[in-house]
């Protein structure tokens, strides 16, 4: 009994039309142009004020920051490891040593990566004392230490333009993530191991995978523009009977007590795992 009777369709249509534009009162969507204008003006001013406030607070906040080093570095106390070349999808290398096309991308990536290590680019860099932390705290202009490509031996791309991929001895470059102010202790070195023994023989350049302390610490992008992070090349000599098999390799940073390599959650903290599968 309290049910409302349904309005005929035409009537509700007229009501809708009236609501969208009412010619009598000049109301558009239930408000006059003036009213809409006022509302619009209000929100314009309101949001304009908020935007200005946001910009202002952000500006104030940015003023408190230094250009050279971030305020806090506690979220990256220990560096991660990364490799080059880095396959797109996951850290898995698939190539055919007799098919140049299959590894062309890897080679190109390596070449590009090593461009900045070219001697011509390192003219400003100095030769530092090996084995010692290169502390430049007091110096205004921070110098970068020279990293000679020749240290990468067969993986430098100079003798073998295919970085060993055509010979079945592919090179993978391992690098340590840059972290401002990080000073490794001890004698940090990269060591890799295959899960199954005997499938692959691993060679390191520089020998034993040593990372020289002279490349530390890093002073940040703006102060340390020409900085080159040290590299360790890992050459995998895959046994001929292990081709067509997936070889899982894990590299870790060892020999330094303040570089972590066994975090439960972060699988890349001081270590990296990748797979290689070579066909002939």
């Amino acid at each position, binding site marked *: *009994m*309290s049910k409302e009777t349904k309005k005929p369709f035409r009537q509700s249509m007229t009501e809708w039309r009236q609501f969208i534009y009412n010619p009598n009162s000049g109301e558009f969507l239930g408000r006059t142009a003036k*009213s809409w204008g*006022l*509302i619009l003006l*209000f*929100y314009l001013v*309101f*949001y304009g004020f*908020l935007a200005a*406030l*946001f910009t202002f*607070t*952000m500006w104030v*906040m*940015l003023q408190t*920051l230094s250009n*050279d*080093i*971030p*305020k*806090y*570095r506690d*979220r*990256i106390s220990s*560096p*991660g*490891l*990364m490799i080059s070349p*880095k*396959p*797109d*999808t*996951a*850290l898995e290398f698939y190539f055919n040593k007799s098919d140049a096309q299959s590894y062309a991308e890897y080679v190109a990536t390596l070449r590009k990566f090593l461009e900045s290590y070219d001697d011509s680019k390192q003219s400003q860099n100095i030769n530092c004392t090996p084995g010692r932390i290169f502390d430049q705290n007091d110096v205004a202009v921070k110098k970068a230490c020279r990293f000679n490509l020749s240290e990468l031996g067969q993986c430098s791309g100079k003798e073998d333009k295919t970085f060993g991929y055509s010979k079945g001895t592919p090179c993978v470059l391992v*690098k340590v*993530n*840059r*972290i*401002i102010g990080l000073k490794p202790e001890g004698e940090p070195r990269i060591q890799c191991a295959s899960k199954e023994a005997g499938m692959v023989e691993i060679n390191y350049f520089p020998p034993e995978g040593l990372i020289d302390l002279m490349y530390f610490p*890093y002073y*940040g*992008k*703006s102060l*340390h523009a020409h*900085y080159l992070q040290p590299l360790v090349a890992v050459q995998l000599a895959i046994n001929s009977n292990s081709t067509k098999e997936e070889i899982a390799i894990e590299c870790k940073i060892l020999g330094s007590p303040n570089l972590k390599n066994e*975090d439960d*959650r*972060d*699988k*890349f*903290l001081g270590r*990296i795992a990748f797979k290689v599968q070579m066909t002939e």
Partner: protein
Amino acid sequence: MKSPFCSLSFSLSFGIQDDHRLSASELETKYGTSISEGLSSAKAAQVLARDGPNALTPPKATPEIVKFLKQMIGGFSILLWIGAVFSWISFGIQLAQGTVSFIDQLYLGVVLALVVILTGIFAYYQEAKSTNIMASFSKMIPQQALVIRDGEKKELPADQLVVGDIVEIKGGDRIPADIRLIFAQGCKVDNSSLTGESEPQSRSCDFTHENPLETKNIAFYSTTCVEGTATGIVINTGDRTIIGRIASLTSGVGNEKTPIAIEIEHFVYLVAGVAISIGVLFFIISVSMRYKILDSIIFLIGIIVANVPEGLLATVTVSLSLTAKRMAKKNCLVKNLEAVETLGSTSVICSDKTGTLTQNRMTVAHLWFDNQIYSADTSEDQTTQPFDQSSPSWTALSKIVTLCNRAEFRPGQENLPIMKRVVVGDASETALLKFAEVILGDVMNIRAQNKKVAEIPFNSTNKFQLSIHKTDDPNDERFLLVMKGAPERILERCSTIMINGKEEPLDSEKAEAFQTAYMELGGMGERVLGFCHLYLPENEFPDTYSFDTDSMNFPTSNLCFVGLLSMIDPPRSTVPDAVSKCRSAGIKVIMVTGDHPITAKAIAKSVGIISATSETVEDIAKRLNIPVEQVNWREATAAVVNGMELKDMSSQQLDEILCNHSEIVFARTSPQQKLIIVEGCQRQGAVVAVTGDGVNDSPALKKADIGIAMGIAGSDAAKNAADMVLLDDNFASIVTGVEEGRLIFDNLKKTIAYTLTKNIAELCPFLIYIIASIPLPIGTITILFIDLGTDIIPSVALAYEKAESDIMNRRPRNKRKDRLVNEQLAIYSYLQIGIMQSVGAFVTYFTVYAEQGFLPSTLLGVRVNWENNAINDFEDSYGQEWTKYQRTYLQWTGYTAFFVSITIQQVADLIIRKTRRNSIFQQGNKVIWVGIFSQIGIALILTYGLGHVTALNFTPLRFQYWFVAVPFAILIWVYDEVRKLFIRRYPGNHLHPIFLSKENITNFPISSLLLQAGGTRTCIIKTHPHHCLLPPYGDLLPLLTKPLLLECPVCAISSMGSPHDGVKEFHDYEKK
């Protein structure tokens, strides 16, 4: 639509057959029984097997599982289920693709499902708890019945009775089934549980009326035999009895949706609409921005979760049950939680008279002796009577009152107050006994000293009661004859009248005075009794005289008239106040009673349902001395409608009455007519509350928006059908209930505004994440921790908020206009405060990232690489490289910072929501502090206590990040204070829609009432220094002085529920 009432009387009369017309022997053959021998046990067992036990089938309750499932899919649950299913689907797809890294999705789905299930269980539990309160009211079957079977009298459980059984009943028994009486002696039944009329009705074995419901030879199941004895044949048992039919009719009347349920539904639709449209919009945007479908689905889930206030419905339930508890303390027991608010939106209360408005006991109200009317105290706890008792006439009258009375106190109640003692005797005699006891002291002792020697009890032919006593004066050997009865009959028997203790001849002048007094008392709706006495001459009636009441060997005429006493069931002392509260609250109180119109009107006047100045059509006719028909009934504000008239009315006529009179009394109505009245009120768009106690009230109670059963006098059926039970049967308790209901509606508004605001701060991160491709600022799980963690206690705390102004001085909310969530509230929360919160939270977010090395410029557009698991040398603004996990951990820190910022700003939101118009300096509420502390406490625990549980995505946060949003919180507060100042200072400004204050124009409080007697500058109700309100008294408008109007720049006009179009009249006046 066909009225259920028509079908009621139809089906009832159809069911009774014509047993009342048959003779005893015809009945014997019809039911195969014998009046002397009864049924044989074998036959009885056979019939029992056929008809089933003589008991009512309990109403079908909704199965618990259905109730539970309703909670599981009701409200927002369905949206969350969709979210959960999407999560699982996306997890499934990822699983199939082999990228299991997104275990988060599985986990999120489980969390969402858990949220739904837990809130569902909570709501179900709350509801079950309030339903259980009612479990205590559920027995209404008579226990034993005295039956003749196999020629022997047996006590049987009443549910074993079958049709044809011969049962014997006596005073005090409950009638065990519908019975056709074949023998009755002085039998009276109380049919109040069936008809609501409390006057006992006599029963005999004569066929007196065609209608089986009216004839005297049928007694109905569940009614009570008050006195006498009777024997009858059972003609109907169980559900086939009249009561059984009514019970089944009741379950046929649908329960209307409660207003708050409608409001919440409206709110859910609104929020769900926003959630779905934003979700779909951004789904399309993200797909067209070349996001993967899978990602887009994940965004969709985030948007839904951000938009849905998960904790809100639980909060509403808690707030309602808190109010229900508070109301229970004030004697309103709420069965259905939502009824709490319904009561607040009530615009019409249809109230019973007896017991609800009145004390439900006859009390002496007036006396007339010595040619003068005296008023007696009728309050509930009277201990003395103030009228002048010095006249010797009073001494004589008091003696008659004391002696000519058969009522007695039950022994052993000496310590109880007189008014509370139980009396054996009828209502009038009880009233007289208590009256005498209050004034004279120990009545029983006085009676003992004036020994009764003869007595003629009251009967309907004589219409008097007489007794003869020895006096307590040892020097006076005369007998005293005392008599009371119907005044005109008593006067007939008198030749003298006592004036100031002296007998004077009863001349026509004195008879005239008597007549005037009698009419006056009768006109007040009171039951009047006359009293007279006679000292019998000592010589004719010596000490040893033997009085014979059969031959009446003593004089019964030429007596001396002493006085009149009139009695009424007086109104409860709290009721007039409650009625005037209703009046100022814009609630129309309609009295519906079975009583005589004159009595009803008198009570209505004395409690203010009919105000002192208003007139009915009859009053106008009397005043103008013209026939009733010539009166323009539109001039009368009050109306007393007789049930007989109502019977012949069409629904249009009823509508006209309901609509055109603001003060209405329905007298002589049957409980069934209540249903018609309720429906009539509902047609006017009113939210109707109805009180009831009889079984027959059940359909009306069910039909009403809120049915109120009486806790003391109410039958179980009424309690079952009602939404609320009044524990003290007091009308005033309804009004306190209304107050609580209005308060909770106001407070729920605040809760919802509070809850909705942060939705924007939860939603914006997703939108900006999609559009600007920044790292996700806040996670879905974190949002759930706000909605179901930090925000819950503050939302409930708002339910403790006191009223901002006198909520009983404004009109009931208009169901269609005053919504729980309206456009203004949503816009103000979403587009103003919500956006401010988002800005504050984003500042914190960018601060956290910038201080860790990611400047805002670096963050834009990084989403794809940022979330790539294979990139573990992601470079920040300073050239440092981050692994995926290091980034994720930073992202969680961002979540935590965002969470903390929202929490801090929600504190400001809570403070501003406390009041809608008043400054927070004007109003305190200690519970709010509990809310604020809990909010911050929970946030601290989550951040620092659980910061190491990876699954929760919280990380310990640097302490200073707690303060980044503080300036924004202060801004929010200042902004809102300015808004409040603005709406207080400039009411009615057209910018109001922006500032959440439209409702103040339609529904603002009345803070003071300048209604001065004399009528010079009347009728403006000042509501505020700048507000005023004109009541609908059109005739008073010309009395307004212009300066007074100028004091009120904005005048809104209320019509107080009357048909007057106040606004129009006001404009007309202004033109003049």
